[in-house]
């Protein structure tokens, strides 16, 4: 079967012009244009299973400045060719072009239900924005890697369109889309970890099976100016909840947090509160939950006037095995609540 392939390129690679033509409106041509001719050659070389049936061209500035409209117009132009696959770019390190390629590739995948592949340099902002919505093959910063990138896109594209199972990013040569698949390996995790450590000690190449997340940093918030009039909230990832865990917060890998009133409560006692955290020895929590959520001493400091008021609720979850995504989501939701309640500062305890 001949797979129908549409190629998306910008005004420059279509030979329309440079910056002076960057406002070029979307158009389509029923044949390969510019780098498309190399893709055609590669397809023939690969056995003639596919052909470029059309090229969609749009100016980089036009796409960037009219993103909704440009996307809709380009999608219609692409759809008219009834394609089985979309190839976009390569965009190298051109920011606007990368955004356009990523946007149209993600949109075509989602709306037309076809596989899509593009290519860009690792620092192209299009990768950060759209790298999870489409396959992106790494390119160099400039067009010097054009032939190699076109070959990589064509190969990956054919694999996608033929529905050949896709392996991991590192082996197949695309940027990780942050997807983890479960499968069985012959060796146990312990044996693989030892292999990895030995490779490391020998100075050989090794790859982690679980990439560490990249954490963000933020500028520190301004300090509390008037502590005597401040409302303070207490939050914890130490797993302290009312006895019986009424909201069924998970003992590990939490997917929710609880908020419980502490209005009028001067002390957390083991009769009323317990830790359900699955990641530490809860013997001390069983003696006095205040050693994790220090309501008793906060109440005393409040009465002494060290600050004005202890916020009426405490927020709690278990921070063990909890995904960074979930922890960030809890933080955002709690942050929203505290902002609306005009809380001035918070103390968060973690085990």
């Amino acid at each position, binding site marked *: 079967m001949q797979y129908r392939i549409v190629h998306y390129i910008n005004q420059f690679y279509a030979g329309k012009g440079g910056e002076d033509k960057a406002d070029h409106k979307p158009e389509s041509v029923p044949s390969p244009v510019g780098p498309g001719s190399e893709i055609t050659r590669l397809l023939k070389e690969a056995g003639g299973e596919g052909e470029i049936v059309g090229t969609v061209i749009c100016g980089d500035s036009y796409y960037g400045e009219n993103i909704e409209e440009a996307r809709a117009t380009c999608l219609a132009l692409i759809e008219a060719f009834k394609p089985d696959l979309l190839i976009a770019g390569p965009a190298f390190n051109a920011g606007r072009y990368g955004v356009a390629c990523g946007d149209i590739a993600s949109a075509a995948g989602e709306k037309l239900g076809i596989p899509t592949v593009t290519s860009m340099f690792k620092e192209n902002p299009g990768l950060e924005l759209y790298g999870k919505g489409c396959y992106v093959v790494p390119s160099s910063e400039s067009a010097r890697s054009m032939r190699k990138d076109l070959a990589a896109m064509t190969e990956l594209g054919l694999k996608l369109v033929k529905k050949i199972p896709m392996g991991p990013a590192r082996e197949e040569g695309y940027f990780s889309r942050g997807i983890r698949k479960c499968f069985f390996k012959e060796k146990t995790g312990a044996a693989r970890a030892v292999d990895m450590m030995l490779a490391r000690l020998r100075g050989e190449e090794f790859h982690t099976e679980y990439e560490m997340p990249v*954490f*963000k*940093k*933020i500028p*520190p*918030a*301004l*300090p*509390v*100016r008037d*502590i005597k009039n401040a409302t*303070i909230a207490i*939050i914890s*990832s*130490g797993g302290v909840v009312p006895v019986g865990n009424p909201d069924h917060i998970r003992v590990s890998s939490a997917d929710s947090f609880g908020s419980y009133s502490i209005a009028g409560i001067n002390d957390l006692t083991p009769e009323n509160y317990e830790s359900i955290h699955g990641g*530490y*020895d*809860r*013997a*001390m*929590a069983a*003696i*006095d939950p*205040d*050693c*994790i959520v*220090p309501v*008793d*001493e*906060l109440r*005393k*400091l409040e009465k002494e006037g*060290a*600050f004005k008021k202890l916020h009426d609720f405490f927020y709690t*979850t278990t*921070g063990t095995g909890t995904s*960074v995504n979930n*922890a*960030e*989501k*809890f*933080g*955002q939701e*709690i*942050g*929203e609540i*505290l*902002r609306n309640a005009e*809380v*001035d*500062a*918070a*103390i*968060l*305890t*973690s*085990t």
Partner: protein
Amino acid sequence: MTREIERVANIPVVQIATIVPIMLTVGTNRVVPGVAIPHPVGDPRKGPEIDHTLRRNLLLKALDAMQTEIQEQTIFE
């Protein structure tokens, strides 16, 4: 969680926990090192008096941290 609360509510959030490098890694700006992993703010084994004093001192340190202007991640020992 600490970082996102601070960002969204735009208020200082002081984290009390024991493994300081983790707090720094996840982006906590105001760090007060705690007593121990299973009991960050107190030590009930040592009896109520010591337990309460430990807790009170850590909270005073946290109150101090939230009133301190900082430019970067800071550990309040």
